[in-house]
């Protein structure tokens, strides 16, 4: 029996989310992207922080078109994608200051997904950099990705917001698998403690087992890299934070190589959540 392969390149889609803003989510997504590319993988970074996008700012690029242009007739993904590096490190930028687009309705989401489906299949990894908060767009993108990476910092506010977004996804949308990265940790001990608190709350109240993907230490070099509008992995590849990010990327890479068969069969981006009609 012929089995149709829906995901030829076995693209792993990964949504990066946090609940709270300002936890270094975009930076982490960007640098994990660089690390994976450095290991020889092709990767597309999609800025899904519609309304307040800033992946382009971190990179010092000013793209002429963005993801929102894709909603227009006749605009193709390849008109919008920007190449960051040779051999497949690309970014799909989004626009800032368009409040109407923050909460895309299901028709707009459907149209967008339809347009990017062919594009994303050309890469081995697809990183979705989601916005802060728990609006409809964040929830949709988080569900549709194959896997989720929740970025949390040791601050109580970040813990609560991450927990809130996990709770909504778990209780309302049946999403059960989350990776957690503790960002901006002072040291290993603080990182462990942060993960423990979040994972115990999820275990106790949601009966959910979180996966500890690791941590990234607080590192002043990162601030310098951002000021230089250069990804940390290019700016200071030997820094503490860069080394932590590389070991995160290795785990993401390993997950993909361990699951190639499963990836080949599923869609890169799952079906969009059905709108609730009661």
């Amino acid at each position: 029996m012929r089995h149709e392969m829906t995901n030829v390149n076995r693209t792993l889609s990964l949504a990066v989310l946090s609940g709270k803003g300002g936890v270094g989510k975009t930076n982490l997504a960007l640098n994990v992207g660089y690390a994976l590319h450095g290991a020889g993988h092709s990767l597309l970074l999609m800025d899904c922080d519609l309304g307040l996008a800033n992946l382009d700012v971190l990179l010092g690029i000013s793209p002429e078109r963005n993801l929102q242009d894709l909603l227009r007739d006749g605009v193709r993904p390849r008109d919008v994608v920007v190449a960051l590096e040779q051999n497949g490190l690309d970014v799909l930028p989004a626009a800032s200051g368009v409040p109407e687009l923050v909460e895309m309705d299901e028709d707009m989401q459907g149209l967008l997904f339809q347009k990017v489906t062919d594009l994303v299949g050309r890469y081995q990894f697809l990183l979705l950099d989601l916005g802060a908060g728990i609006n409809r767009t964040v929830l949709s993108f988080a569900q549709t990705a194959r896997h989720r990476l929740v970025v949390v910092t040791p601050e109580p506010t970040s813990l609560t917001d991450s927990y809130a977004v996990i709770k909504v996804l778990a209780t309302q949308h049946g999403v059960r698998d989350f990776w957690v990265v503790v960002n901006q940790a002072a040291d290993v001990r603080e990182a462990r403690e942060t993960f423990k608190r979040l994972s115990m709350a999820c275990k106790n109240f949601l009966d959910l087992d979180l996966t500890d993907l690791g941590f990234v230490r607080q590192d002043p070099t990162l601030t310098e890299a951002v000021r230089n509008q250069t990804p940390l992995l290019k700016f200071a590849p030997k820094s503490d934070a860069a080394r932590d990010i590389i070991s995160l990327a290795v785990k993401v890479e390993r997950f993909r190589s361990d699951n190639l068969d499963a990836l080949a069969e599923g869609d890169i981006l799952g079906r969009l959540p059905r709108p609730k009609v009661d």
Partner: protein
Amino acid sequence: MPMPEKKPDPAAGTALLADIAALQQALCGQYSEACSGRNGSPTLGVFRLFPGVDLSLWSRLSREHGLSHWLTLPLDEQAYPHLALYQDALERLTYQTDHDPLTSLANRRSFERTLDLEIERARRSRVPVSLALLDLDDFKTVNDTHGHPAGDLVLRRLAEVLEQGKRRYDLAARIGGEEFALVLSGVGLVKSAEILERILESFSTVRFEGSGGESFSVTFSVGIASYRGNVELAVPELVSLADEALYRAKRLGKNRVTVAPLPDVDKVANEATLVHANEKKFLFGK
């Protein structure tokens, strides 16, 4: 009385198809037992005249749209004017069941049906609906002082001001002697109050002439209630909320718009996803 045209008219065919579709939808959707055609059930022939549709056009339509099970009756010129009279009468009666004869606004029955539908829409699609109840201030005095013909004119002018001041898709109704209603779909308390303030303002500039030639103006009071679909709510509940607000407007001195408390504001939060205090303690408690 117009005579039927001799030439078939394609537009008439379109109208015919639309009517049949509406009828079929009503019969097979809402009253499915009527569609199944069980033996022994009461039987009704449904007639509608379509001037401009002749037998050749009908044959094509019934072939193309699967309507061959419908019966048609070609009418000669003696029968047609007679039946057209009946149809006019029926249309007039149908109009009257839904409209107030004095003001031509929707009547109470039509108002209640619309409000019921709008509440259902709000509940399903979480789009707000607002109800404004209007009552003319001191209308008995108007009638007593200026005469009933002047009073009727006031009612008719208010109906006109409502028709002009509302949005095209809002429903204006006369639901009692001097009581009117507006069903405003898609807007909450704040926007509805703006719309009603505007109408209030506009009506206050209208001058009337009494039986003795004297000039006077009339005001009204408004109570508004809104529903956003977050709880179960029936027509009488929304009406009584708006009614209480209207009563408050009267007590506060009339000639004003007053809004009711939201019936479903505390039901906005989803308990299932709320992060509770005990969960927060777990996350960052000492």
